[in-house]
């Protein structure tokens, strides 16, 4: 039981790391990045390529993943989303085109990874890091789980604090509430958008590397599943609310674990879809969502 809870928390933390960046970008600069899953996989994959050459320790791998994720995310923003926003005539069209553009762009890194791996799962067995487990009596905690939990909750706290207290964070929130007022206040929208996308990509990269360590190996297609689960977590908690994403990710992971443990598990993939569908019908602003958050 306690072990299941710990596993659920770990899974929730991985969802959280992934969803945090997506929610941040969506709730503030209004970009729902569907290439996020692809960035996540490609960052993990780049780390894999690197570790095949040099036996790197875990911190270095995490740094590589975060850096690759940030760079890819910036590239997507500059090459795709910025041109779309510049040319779109109205907000609604821009939003849809960003969704579609994201889905289109996501194909490229995924295709490269699939090509190089032959769609075979990849892992970090060539690195120096080895999974070890501590038996605490009531649960067995692995070092990967510990790092994941600390990273996810720590980063969520940092980002939550940053949005609340730091100047750029406040400016970013202002953009999320009213872009026009924000630009009148002298907020440099473009710079903040780039910063947000870099942070979001970095988080995705981190999540990708940690997931690979946790599962031992991942397949390039993992990104799609994570994308929809992250969306479910965000919708559950409420767009733009950091506390909401934390709760959403944990609740989703909790229900999934419960279903996996108590049934044969074939229904587990349906939970995210069910959550998205029901929440959108019943409470589209999420459990903790703000009313003023962008809606279409």
């Amino acid at each position: 039981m306690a072990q299941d809870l710990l596993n659920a928390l770990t899974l929730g933390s991985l969802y959280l790391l992934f969803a945090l960046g997506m929610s941040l970008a969506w709730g503030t600069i209004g970009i729902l990045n569907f290439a996020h899953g692809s960035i996540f996989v490609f960052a993990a994959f780049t780390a894999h390529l690197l570790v095949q050459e040099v036996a790197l320790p875990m911190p270095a791998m995490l740094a590589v993943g975060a850096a690759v994720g940030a760079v890819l995310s910036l590239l997507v923003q500059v090459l795709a989303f910025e041109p779309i926003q510049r040319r779109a005539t109205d907000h609604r069209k821009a939003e849809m085109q960003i969704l579609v553009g994201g889905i289109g762009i996501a194909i490229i890194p995924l295709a490269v990874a699939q090509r190089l791996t032959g769609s075979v799962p990849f892992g970090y067995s060539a690195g120096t890091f080895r999974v070890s487990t501590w038996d605490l009596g009531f649960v067995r905690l692995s070092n990967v789980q510990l790092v994941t939990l600390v990273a996810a909750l720590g980063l969520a706290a940092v980002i939550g604090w940053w949005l609340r207290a730091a100047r750029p964070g406040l400016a970013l929130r202002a953009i999320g509430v009213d872009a026009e007022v924000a630009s009148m206040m002298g907020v440099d929208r473009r710079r903040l958008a780039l910063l947000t996308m870099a942070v979001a990509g970095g988080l995705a990269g981190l999540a990708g590397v940690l997931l690979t360590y946790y599962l031992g190996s991942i397949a390039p297609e993992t990104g799609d599943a994570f994308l929809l689960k992250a969306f479910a977590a965000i919708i559950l908690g409420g767009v733009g609310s950091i506390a909401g994403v934390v709760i959403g990710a944990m609740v989703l992971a909790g229900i999934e674990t419960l279903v996996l443990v108590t049934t044969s598990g074939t229904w587990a993939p349906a939970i995210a879809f069910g959550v998205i569908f029901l929440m959108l019908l019943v409470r589209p602003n999420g459990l903790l969502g703000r009313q003023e958050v962008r809606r279409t």
Partner: protein
Amino acid sequence: MNAWWVSHLVLVQSTFISLLLALSIQVPLRAGVFSFAGVGSYAIGAYTAAILTIRAQLAPVLAIGAGVVLAAVVGYLLALLVARLSGLYLGMATISFALFLGVLATNGGELTGGATGLFGAISTLTTTHVVAISVVVVLLLAASERGAYGRRVDAVREDPHLAVSLGIDVTRVRRRVFVVSGALGACAGGMNALLRTTVSPETVGFHLVVTALTMIIVGGALSWAGAAIGAVIFTWLPSVLQVVGDWQLVVYGVLVAAAAVWVPGGLLGLAQDGWRRLRASRRRVPPEGAAAPAAPVAADAEQQLAALGGPAAEVRS
């Protein structure tokens, strides 16, 4: 020629099935409804046709027809459920609906064959039937894009408020679109299941959403012709791209991404723009009434009226 036909039969069939699937997304999009429910209907149609063919040995017309009717009803009910949603939220709700059906199929036990799916749905459906049905569908949709029918849908997409003020029942148009989308998706799914004699839960994944969407993005979302261009390109591209060998998926990705970002109207939009520009340059009408707009109102009335007339200077707000 005959040899070519035989060796490319599967591709020809796929082209028309892809076309119908793409249309099941394009029809809602044309009315401004961002719905992927057609992908879910594809699953409904495929499973219904396969089950009825295997268990009841129904004729393909009836097997596929039953799926079409079922999906149309489901589409209507779905439209009622998601009536309040639009844009992104509607898109995500319908994606979830479609993918949920995939999981449902996995858990359908004996009826749906679980994770392995169903085999042996052998029927008398031929390529000629598929082509004939597709042609009829395309003709009907082409008609719906012309005249008053077309204008109506344009108004609903571009400006729902305006459409209402012009006497168009926007809610009803949206519901119809869900029904048509459901029927088209189910028709594609049913025909595919019977041609391949098999269906499995893997048929309806996120990849099918991506496939259907990319065809429309590259082809153009505002007309059946766009969906047709997309269906042809993406069915035949792999055989053309054999030149680039293993990298064809990457090339495919670059194409889709470029189209999504730089050519929002798709190839069809590009062609139409070009055609219009060509015609405009031939015609060259002097721009009538192009005199500077919003000249301030002449203060021709009494003094106080002129003062009152002031606000006219800021009418453009």
